[in-house]
């Protein structure tokens, strides 16, 4: 849906390739594109304006490095400024003070407070070995307290017993009291969703804060939030005082400009990102990743990290050795397919690479999905050891047998063999590039190699 900023800026700078320093007129034109990109990413207008001003000042007169185009240079300047603005300090939760320490979660309706509360509680319990209790102060939404109780059971964190009819301030006091008596380290207070303009509810949450004295007050906000993000964050911050922000549904396809808006207007760090519906899908904030996302430049860092996590070191080394010798048999291909599946399948992988938006659509059209990967694994599993090590021996009758064994057709087997041939050619090239070159070339080479002529089916 969105063109990447890099390619857009590329067209702005077409025709003025490689000249010394960036001129004011050129920068101005580029900034028009940057402005549009930021607005499409839902960064709030006032924030966009101040950002553009800062970046313009930095960009005018900047030397264009020899090896890059002016467009890339501008993207670099924009990206760096964005990362800086998003905040680079690593910020864990502040749990200092006499236990029990309270952490209060606030936000609009449906922003994901209850789920986030349980996720943080789980993390504190498991990773920081804290004794945590959760309490729901949501007396407005039907069954909200039950929801937290159920989540508490799932993540094995105690929840405060529900007393029907009790009001939020009293629940908060009761939670603190119970935690004190029970020797808990942390009390997570999940408040009801409220509009920042609802005076009585804002008074209520302020009273809860006064009663519990939390060391952290975290605004939970949806990554899909539009221009209103500034208003919401500003109102909550002015009214009750925030200490941090948690951005949820970052696993959606929203560009997440709200992160920048809220960070800018409250000056509070973004502490966590909610990355899925499962209870362990909580990540620390990385400014560089979000900056790349807002600019539509793909999430290269994440890809590299995820790849490092998933590919087992030893296997990788063994494979690297083989590759250097120019050997890449079907067993290796099977391993590759398995790793690909672990990394979130083709779609997950593609989503993280820059500039593959269009390619993604083509792939969707070509029916390249994770089932295809599974089918290919099945084909390889149906081969004999000899066949896997030396695919040249696979002739017609063997192909028939393999197809029958894997529940596919001979055409499918042919396609796989062709793909293997292409991959082994690529591997030979890669071995010349070295490790770094591999990640880079992945973006350029994999899709055409993964996609035999004429699509998959």
């Amino acid at each position: 849906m969105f063109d990447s900023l890099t390619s857009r800026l590329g067209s702005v700078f077409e025709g003025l390739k490689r000249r010394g320093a960036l001129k004011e007129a050129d920068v101005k034109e580029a900034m028009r594109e940057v402005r549009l990109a930021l607005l499409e990413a839902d960064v709030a207008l006032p924030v966009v304006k101040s950002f553009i001003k800062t970046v313009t000042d930095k960009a005018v007169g900047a030397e264009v490095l020899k090896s890059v185009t002016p467009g890339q240079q501008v993207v670099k300047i924009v990206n760096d400024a964005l990362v800086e603005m998003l905040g680079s300090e690593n910020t864990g939760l502040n749990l200092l003070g006499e236990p029990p320490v309270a952490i209060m979660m606030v936000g609009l309706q449906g922003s994901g407070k209850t789920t986030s509360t349980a996720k943080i509680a789980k993390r504190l319990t498991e990773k920081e070995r804290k004794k945590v209790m959760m309490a729901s102060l949501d007396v407005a939404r039907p069954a909200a307290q039950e929801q937290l109780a159920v989540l508490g059971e799932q993540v094995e964190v105690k929840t405060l017993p529900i007393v029907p009819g009790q009001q939020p301030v009293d629940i908060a006091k009761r939670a603190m009291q119970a935690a004190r008596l029970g020797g808990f380290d942390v009390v997570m207070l999940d408040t009801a969703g409220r509009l920042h303009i609802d005076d009585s509810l804002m008074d209520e949450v302020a009273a809860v804060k006064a009663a519990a004295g939390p060391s952290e007050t975290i605004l939970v906000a949806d990554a899909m939030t539009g221009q209103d993000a500034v208003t919401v964050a500003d109102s909550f911050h002015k009214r009750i005082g925030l200490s941090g922000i948690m951005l949820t549904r970052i696993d959606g396809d929203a560009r997440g400009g709200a992160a920048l808006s809220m960070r800018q207007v409250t000056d509070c760090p973004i502490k966590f990102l909610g990355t899925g519906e499962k209870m362990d899908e909580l990540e620390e904030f990385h400014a560089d990743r979000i900056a790349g996302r807002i600019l539509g430049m793909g999430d290269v860092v994440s890809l590299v990290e995820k790849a490092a996590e998933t590919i087992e070191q030893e296997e990788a080394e063994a494979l690297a050795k083989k590759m250097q010798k120019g050997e890449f048999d079907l067993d290796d291909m099977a391993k590759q397919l398995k790793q690909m599946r672990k990394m979130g399948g083709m779609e997950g992988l593609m989503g993280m690479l820059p500039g593959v938006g269009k390619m993604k659509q083509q792939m969707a059209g070509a029916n390249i999905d994770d089932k295809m990967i599974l089918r290919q694994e099945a084909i390889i599993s149906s081969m004999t050891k000899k066949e896997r090590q030396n695919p040249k021996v696979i002739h017609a009758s063997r192909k028939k047998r393999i197809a029958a064994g894997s529940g596919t057709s001979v055409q499918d087997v042919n396609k796989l063999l062709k793909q293997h041939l292409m991959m082994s050619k690529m591997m030979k090239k890669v071995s010349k590039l070295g490790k770094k070159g591999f990640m880079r070339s992945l973006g350029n080479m994999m899709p055409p190699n993964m996609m035999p002529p004429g699509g998959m089916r």
Partner: protein
Amino acid sequence: MSWFQKLKSGLSKSSTKIVSSISSVITKRKLDDEALEELEEALIAADLGPVTAAKLTASLAKSRFDKEVTDEEVRGALAEDIAIILDPVAKPLEIDRSKGPHVVLVVGVNGSGKTTTIGKMAQHYSAQGLKVMLAAGDTFRAAAVEQLKIWGDRTGCKVVARETGADAAGLAYDAIESARAEGADLLLIDTAGRLHNKKDLMAELEKVVRVIAKLDASAPHNTLLVLDATVGQNAHSQVETFQSIVNVSGLVVTKLDGTAKGGVLVALAEKFGLPVHAIGVGETADDLKPFEADAYAKSLMGLAD
């Protein structure tokens, strides 16, 4: 308070900002390039999106460029243009009692307000004398079933439910059978919130639709996408994906009682032309209102009706 007042007071918090920014741009001054740019920005700040904002501004420029204009004129003209875009999509949901039952599937991303909207719809149609049944199809989120059951109690509607973790498609099937047996006029089926870019979850939703069609080939008669007004440009992607997968027939826009303007609606109306059946302006059962283009456009621009 009448609903219009309520909408207006909700929107006025948002429109105050638009109005004050537009007023500061144009108080009897020449509508020049600079003024137009600031005008465009005011619309962008209302989530209309850069493209729609540019288009509306351009159309204003056509008729009034370089003329002395007042704040009121500009607002009026913009409201008119917006109303023209929104008018074709302002259609209430029509329930056909002869369908026995008329099946409405409610879908959307997490936290958009599906369950609450169903509760409000249950109230609305029960009050009109229809026999309404609810299906607690969000079998994923903790306590979502309980949440809908409470709405069932409040509105006196029967709720078909299974335990959390049950198959949503199977539940929908049961719900239609039991709605038929009970002679219900309207069956509202809740679904779990899902992000539209999650293929497996969208496939699950597709299955729900497929299973429903087994019992009644014309069902679901309506598939409503619930959109949160605070959502920005991502709404485009939501509508596009949900529409392509489960054939969305209309929208409900929630949380319009905040400062979010839901201006993206204007862009959505232009691009997709999907009917906007209702808007949510609060947490109580009565806070579901019909969507009226003129009133909405005027309140958005801060004009009295």
